[in-house]
């Protein structure tokens, strides 16, 4: 290939030009230098005193060590507002996180409390536009004070104002681009939507706040007196409301979590993802038998089972502190990524919503789903019904039914009633369904069935009053029927499953199934993630 041969000759003219240009560069550097100081030394120091990390250091900590960070419009708002809003109070740019280039949008709380000026919004929107065009996941490091009120008419109402950023967020999600937030400070009013519209959210205890209206507005509106932490703190949102998915004790921890989240994105979704090198679990799969046992009434922690099934026993739990009776999380089996849903008790509304949310994540990220069923059913009772468990569990059923990624089910314990549906039973056509020798599958357990049937007999009008011996006969017959029909051998003989496998074989069997599916992932059509 031809090489350009330079004809440049040194000389006075060259030197002159160079010297003149050096002055230009000097000016640029001097101005950039002022941007680096953010809101100034005093405010930076106060920021640190509150246990908070300056925005550029947050970015250094977030990106892969010494990977490039392509910062955008650092001189936004230069010489506007008396030059008191360096970089428009927001740092945007593209950085590598866990090997994936991401758009990073980070508020600088040392600049006017991180509030939004006209140029802040414009820079925010421009960053989102670039992310959209270049198909980059978006990471929002939120530490903002909402609109800068004196300027609200230039921030809030118009087409390309604040609302536009939420539109972008929703449309990017629909286009399959991950939206992730870490909440380091306030997210008030509209600001609350940045995390609430995100696929996954990390919140820092003590400093992170999400509320549509802060304590002063709450007092003014409904005369309720409440402190900010109770109203919208990290613990409340992670454990109670589910607006946040992970509780971090420090900003460092939140950044580490953000890196893990990006690491589990399976990004970019490729027609044939390269499997990671497989590594055996840290713990012996043969130990599963001793964990599970043969008595379905004896609960066990399903994470102990997962630890003996997945590569390196590494499991990135999703929403570990919310709806804990359903364990959800990302792992690899024989090098293939997999999203696992596993029962750790009765399903509540929260567990069902969490499951539906998790399935959406996997669906968007083209990560196959593995259901480890050990379920007696959904929670019953007045409280559950008033809480709308029927519609919440239906969301899980909906998500299970319409997920486009390959689904696999292993019955590792009981598979009773509606739980069977929510956890992708045979009727939901998982690609493969296997059972363990301790599995039981039926509408309900023999004990419950006997109670139901004897109660029906007692109240039967057509068949008249029953004496105790008949009740006892009915009871015995029902028990016998359910006991016989719920055994895994009864099930496998009728091809309700694809075979009974030993617990220790499960990792290998699922590994083989996942490798088959890895050869044919379709990539058209994206779906958004709705925070449930």
């Amino acid at each position, binding site marked *: 290939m031809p090489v350009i041969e330079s004809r440049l000759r040194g000389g006075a003219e060259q030197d002159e030009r160079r010297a003149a240009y050096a002055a230009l560069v000097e000016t640029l550097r001097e101005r950039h230098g002022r941007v680096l100081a953010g809101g100034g030394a005093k405010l930076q120091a106060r920021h640190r005193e509150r246990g908070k990390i300056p925005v550029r250091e947050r970015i250094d900590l977030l990106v*892969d060590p*010494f990977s490039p960070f*392509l910062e955008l419009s*650092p001189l936004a708002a230069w010489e506007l507002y008396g030059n008191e809003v360096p970089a428009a109070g927001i740092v945007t740019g593209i950085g590598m996180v866990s*090997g994936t280039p991401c758009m990073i949008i980070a508020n600088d709380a040392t600049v006017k409390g991180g509030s939004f000026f006209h140029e802040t919004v414009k820079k925010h929107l421009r960053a989102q536009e670039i992310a959209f065009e270049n198909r980059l996941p978006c990471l929002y490091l939120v530490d903002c004070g909402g609109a800068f009120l004196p300027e609200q008419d230039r921030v809030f109402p118009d087409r390309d104002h604040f609302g536009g950023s939420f539109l972008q967020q929703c449309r990017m999600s629909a286009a399959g681009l991950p939206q992730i937030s870490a909440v380091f400070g306030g997210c008030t009013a509209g600001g609350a939507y940045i995390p609430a519209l995100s696929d996954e959210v990390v919140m820092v205890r003590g400093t992170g706040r999400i509320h549509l209206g802060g304590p002063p507005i709450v007092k003014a509106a409904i005369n309720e007196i409440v402190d900010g932490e109770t109203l919208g703190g990290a613990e409340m949102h992670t454990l109670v409301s589910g607006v946040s998915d992970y509780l971090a004790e420090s900003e*460092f*921890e939140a*950044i580490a979590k953000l890196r893990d989240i990006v690491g589990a994105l399976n990004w970019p979704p490729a027609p044939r993802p390269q499997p990671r090198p497989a590594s055996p679990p840290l*713990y012996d799969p043969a130990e599963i038998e001793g964990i599970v046992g043969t008595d379905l009434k004896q609960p066990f922690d399903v994470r102990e089972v997962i630890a003996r099934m997945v590569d390196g026993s590494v499991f990135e739990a999703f929403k570990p502190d919310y709806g804990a009776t359903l364990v959800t999380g990302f792992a690899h089996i024989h090098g293939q990524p997999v999203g696992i849903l596993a029962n750790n008790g009765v399903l509540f509304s929260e567990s069902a919503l969490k499951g539906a949310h998790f399935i959406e994540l996997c669906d968007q990220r083209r990560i196959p789903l593995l259901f480890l069923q050990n379920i007696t059913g959904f929670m019953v009772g007045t409280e559950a019904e008033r809480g709308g468990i029927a519609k919440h569990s239906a969301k899980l059923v909906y998500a299970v039914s319409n997920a486009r990624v390959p689904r696999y089910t292993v019955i590792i314990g009981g598979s009773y009633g509606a739980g069977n549906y929510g956890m992708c039973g045979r009727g939901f056509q998982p690609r493969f369904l296997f059972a363990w020798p301790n599995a039981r599958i039926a509408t309900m357990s023999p004990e419950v069935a006997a109670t139901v049937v004897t109660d029906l007999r007692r109240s039967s009008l057509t068949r008249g009053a029953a004496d105790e011996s008949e009740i006892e006969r009915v009871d015995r017959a029902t028990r016998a029927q359910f006991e016989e029909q719920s055994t895994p051998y009864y099930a496998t003989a009728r091809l309700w499953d694809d075979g009974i496998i030993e617990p220790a074989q499960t990792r290998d069997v699922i590994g083989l199934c996942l490798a088959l599916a890895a050869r044919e992932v379709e990539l058209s059509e994206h779906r958004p993630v709705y925070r449930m």
Partner: protein
Amino acid sequence: MIGSLLIANRGEIAVRIMRTCRRLGIRTVAVFSDADRDALHVACADEAVRIGPAAARDSYLRAEAIMEAAARSGAEAIHPGYGFLSEKPDLPLLCREAGRIFVGPSAECIRAMGPKIGSKLIAEQAGVPSVPGYAGEDQSNAALADAAARIGYPVMIKASAGGGGKGMRRVFSATDFVPALDMARAEAQAAFGDPALLIEKLVLRPRHLEVQVAGDKHGNIVHLFERDCSVQRNNQKVLEEAPAPNLAPAIRAKLLERGVALARTIGYDNLGTVEFILEEGFDEPWFLEMNTRLQVEHPVTEAITGYDLVEWQIRIAAGERLPALQHEIRESGHAIEARITAERADQGFRPDAGRIEGYREPGAIRVDSGVRAGSEVTLFYDSLLAKAIAAGADRAEACARLAAGLRDFAILGPATTLPFLADAVEHPLFAEGRATTRFIEEAFPDGWAAKRPNQRLARAVAALLWLARQEAARPGGDAWAGLSGFRVLAPAGGLAASHVVASEEGTTTRLEVRALPDGGRVVRDGEGEIELVLRSGDECFEVTCEGRLLRGSHAVADGRVRLVLDGEGFDIGLQSVTRIAAGANGSSSGSGAVNASMPGVVAEVRVAAGERVEAGQVVVVLESMKLFTSLTAGIAGTVADIACQTGETVPAGKRLVLIEAAPA
């Protein structure tokens, strides 16, 4: 000549014997225990046979298993190496029965030299004196005092039935003798029920000298000069050399003559070593014992004589005559050997274990090694990893070569004695050839400690190496992967920074590393800033700092950087600040699991199921060789499970105890 040889040993000596076999065209058979399946000596052999579980008594010490392996592999001959079965008559006897050749002396020679007292009697008959002493029946004060005077002060009084220091007295002059005698006698009576005493010459500052002898089955006996092995710790040799420095020609003549005389008396018929001590100021070497096998330190003799002693052993065993007669054997130059062991020289030579992550031998000196990169140093055997042997026209040259070689030698993983050995070789006492067996206590009166002038620099280099490894792991070959530390604002001072925590021997240091646009790095620690330029390959690196260019070797694995910088070894743990904050499980909430921090044996379980524990309380003590590590509870609560037992061998990362959090 022998066609095939089984080596009933492991480690460097097995590898070294195979090297000679290869040169002589002899097929080699290795034996291995379960712990040594992937060991270097197995990889070096033409064939290898498993002989049992890891423990030596179940494998390398089982003569029948060795014989069975020889039968299965069709080995014509067996070489015992040193240690293990080498000084027991079992193998030669079994070989005789099975019609195989034993590469070593006859069972009779081994038996004759085995017992300490018996061998001394034989030596005495051969005119080879041992340490002067009196063990007569006349126990009167007068007789004993006479004996003491004859032996010459200082003397040691010992209980005949003795042991454990009871009834022992050091006496430096005749005036103190009788009172000491009375007390020793009383103690002996009390401790052993027998008042009988021995008198022996008290040896204070001895040198350890030995004569390499060789005999064949045709009655020829020669010596191959002497060695000085005075530098020892816990009676184990550390540095060995040939010839002995500063040895009067008359004493040397006596030494060699006595060695040959003893060998001749017992009709010695292979290679052996006759050991002596020489007390400072005396001109009589006293016989100590005879080792009827190849010595660890034989390479120094090879270096000054030019012979391959393993070849000698094989030829003699095959019935050939000695390859050289006395008048043909010449010496030239000087050679020194250093034994490199997996030990903490700064902690009383406590053994260390683990995987060797990086291994690079120095050039210009001989190295006999039993390990390579990837070798696992286990809990089961001797801690000797390799020997470095330097030769020179004179002693000063050999010393200089050895010290340089030791400082260039990189064994990255378990702690080794390399830096200690280099310091020892360079110590004036050794350099001047004045070392006695008390060398280590005299040269390092407060115990040896690494000088570590480069500690701060090493920590900075380790951080850079660790970061470079992260950078190299970035996917894709594009500008995002290739550009290092790029920032639009870098020319304005907005440098890319990384924050890491370095931990070493219980101290942790937070480091901020900034990337200069020219590729250099600035490392800030608590003391200030260091500017460095690092170039690194997979194993070696070069670092420039304040105009100084230093080289080293490194290995990065499992969040640890092991490196050798200017002859000093470092083992530094590294982690990003964020990962540290997040904890090992990605969550800062304390975990109730107590996991094995390294592979080892459970030495002690300090809690019982159901017991209440406080956060920080020691629950399990883990032992790796002699290294005890206390594992503490991460949270307060109740012990919910104990998943290990005392004595159990556990892998790193295994959960040993589970603590259920106390309700808040």
